[in-house]
């Protein structure tokens, strides 16, 4: 939970004593999501939908007769394309002031939060988590992002003045992004 924004629907405390509203909203979202199962989904590379030669089916572990969707069998070339797109975007992104980057990333966390119940319902269907575990996981995804945004601010963007040996010298320590990171998950 982010102490600064105070806007979160779900916290540690909420999950230990879930309200009726939490159940109602989760169940409504689950119903909405169930009407959207079984579709074929593209990958997204450089902001564009991309399809592969092959797809694979994903079923719910809590009801193996339930087809969640068809997904693209991405190749090494697709991974390479995604990496290249991220590398092309990196110079402009990293050149933006850290305050702006924090703002953009906070907005992303806000979008996760807005879709909390939908994403939780999908998490339950996809991995079989019960509703409180699923809601906790999704809220936590947003909260981790908020947390690191707060850390950036608390540390002045990790751009700090050091001691100066004379009036015409400025010494700073700056933490600068490494660059593109690849996350491989299964």
């Amino acid at each position: 939970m982010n102490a600064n924004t105070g806007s979160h629907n779900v916290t540690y405390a909420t999950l230990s004593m879930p309200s009726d509203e939490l159940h109602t909203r989760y169940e409504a979202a689950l119903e909405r999501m169930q009407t959207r199962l079984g579709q074929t989904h593209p990958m997204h590379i450089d902001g564009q939908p991309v399809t592969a030669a092959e797809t694979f089916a994903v079923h719910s572990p809590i009801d193996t007769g339930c087809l969640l969707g068809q997904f693209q069998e991405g190749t090494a070339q697709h991974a390479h394309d995604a990496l290249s797109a991220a590398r092309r975007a990196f110079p402009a992104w990293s050149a933006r002031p850290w305050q702006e980057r924090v703002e953009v990333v906070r907005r992303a966390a806000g979008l996760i939060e807005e879709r909390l119940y939908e994403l939780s319902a999908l998490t339950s269907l996809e991995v079989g988590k019960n509703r409180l575990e699923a809601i906790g996981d999704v809220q936590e995804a947003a909260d981790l992002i908020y947390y690191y945004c707060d850390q950036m601010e608390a540390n002045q963007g990790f751009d700090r003045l050091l001691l100066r040996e004379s009036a015409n010298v400025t010494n700073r320590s700056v933490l600068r992004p490494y660059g593109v990171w690849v996350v491989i998950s299964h």
Partner: protein
Amino acid sequence: MGCGLSSAISNDPEEIARFLDHIQAGVTYVNRQGGATTGAWPGYQSFGGWKGSSSTSKAAGSFYYVQQYMREQSRTVIELG
């Protein structure tokens, strides 16, 4: 090398100190009834392992994490005049 993500103990006051000082795990809980070793939350508990349960031994959702995605540069600029 083994792993060491989360761990918990309850009750015995003597064992508690020994547990906290010697357990090789990144997350520890003492006397926690619900979800004994799970359920860390950003800002409440850091979450990350030691040894094979970690790549850097700095946990998520805490003070030392986000810096790992950045490298430090010292910038000394001298004004000529």
